[in-house]
């Protein structure tokens, strides 16, 4: 059995899946799908995920898309005594993790579609929505409020909900948004995630190239 992960390291949700694999201690084969050169639109990849999105996972006959569904699957299938707290099975506890995973989609919309607009900047000649920060701050405040009561998003220990929320929030680095410290509980939690022993391998430097291109395009358009 070989797990195959199709991914582009720049993808925040893809990096969350990568961290999930590491947290579970699983071996896998990495197949790179370069988004900048549109490899996600190649027929071979569309056979894996007809929607042409990364990440995707193949496990024998199973072809799976949607990062959060992939992370849940990996835990359901491969978690051991030592790792099952990443996605607890008691219904009440699991419900909170699921709730945070689903509200993560909303945070992603505020940050990506409502503010950074990376795809529109890279491909459609647009600028980020610099002034549309209300939704971003609302998402950060929501996180900060939750983390006031709990060390992690779904309670007192790490779950996959943390691995997803973190990469979404950190994607704000694309625009060097540096208000993290205004949300002290969130900032303390970010530091904890960044101290995980697999964090660097999955995240460090992964956005640099795309970020450089994105920021260069923005500068050029602002001059005009």
């Amino acid at each position: 059995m070989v797990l195959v992960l199709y991914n582009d390291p720049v993808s925040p949700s893809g990096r969350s899946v990568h961290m999930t694999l590491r947290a579970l201690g699983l071996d896998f084969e990495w197949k790179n799908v370069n988004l900048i050169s549109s490899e996600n639109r190649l027929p071979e990849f569309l056979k894996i995920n007809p929607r042409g999105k990364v990440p995707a996972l193949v496990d024998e006959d199973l072809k799976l898309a949607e990062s959060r569904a992939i992370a849940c699957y990996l835990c359901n299938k491969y978690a051991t005594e030592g790792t099952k707290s990443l996605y607890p099975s008691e219904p009440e506890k699991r419900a909170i993790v699921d709730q945070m995973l689903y509200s993560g989609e909303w945070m992603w919309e505020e940050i990506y579609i409502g503010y950074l607009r990376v795809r529109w900047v890279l491909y459609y000649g647009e600028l980020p929505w610099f002034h549309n920060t209300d939704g971003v701050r609302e998402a950060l405040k929501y996180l900060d409020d939750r983390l006031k009561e709990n060390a992690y998003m779904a309670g007192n220990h790490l779950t996959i909900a943390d691995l997803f929320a973190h990469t979404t929030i950190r994607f704000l680095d694309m625009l060097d948004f540096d208000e993290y410290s205004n949300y002290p509980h969130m900032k303390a939690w970010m530091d904890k995630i960044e101290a995980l022993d697999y964090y660097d391998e999955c995240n460090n430097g992964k956005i640099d190239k795309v970020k450089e291109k994105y920021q260069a395009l923005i500068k050029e358009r602002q001059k005009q």
Partner: protein
Amino acid sequence: MGVKLYHFGLSPFSRAVQMTLTALGVKYSIETIDLMKGEQRTDEYKKINPRGKVPALVDGKLSLGESRAIACYLCNKYASGSKKTLYPSAPELRAKVDMLLYVGEWIADTIVEYLNIAGVLFRGEKPKDEKLADVKSCLQYLEDCLKGQNYIAGDNLTIADFFAVCPLLLLENVDFNDYDPYPKLKKWINTMKSLKYFDEINKEPMKMFKAAFNEKLNLPAAKQTGF
């Protein structure tokens, strides 16, 4: 005590949770949160769902937001016997359901964007015809899912079907009826509509919403308007 659903009939997500509760046979009470009156923004409700969205669920000490998380919880907690197939526990089968629940967000967003619901209701705008192509990619995606199986996530009815059909049927608000290229989807819609609890949960709210939506579009007068 018992299970309590904070509900608004016009929300398709709220109705998908209701379908889940009914399919499971879980007894529950309803508290209506009237979005038209802004009841989702009261401090009292924000204690239950800090995001101020419907639906939400309270069960004992647990307060839960996010419709899909609610449906998963209800199955994890209360499904027994033949009801277990609504959210199967074999990892491979469950993965398909989870995937379709997440894909359902894309489908719902795409349809809401095409219909331009907020624009039509509150700003005198029209549906965005230029988004119809995106809607059609959603329909094609579902058609492909249904190849060789009766329901979108497998051979059995699952909660993913509820969360796909409720937003999909928003298309009835503009009498979208171009299902000929999607025969399997058409058949599945009919299967969903003939579930014995479908009408009691969906019929009135769908009719009310359609009347209000069409009144705003200045189409032939609606018989009744809810708001």
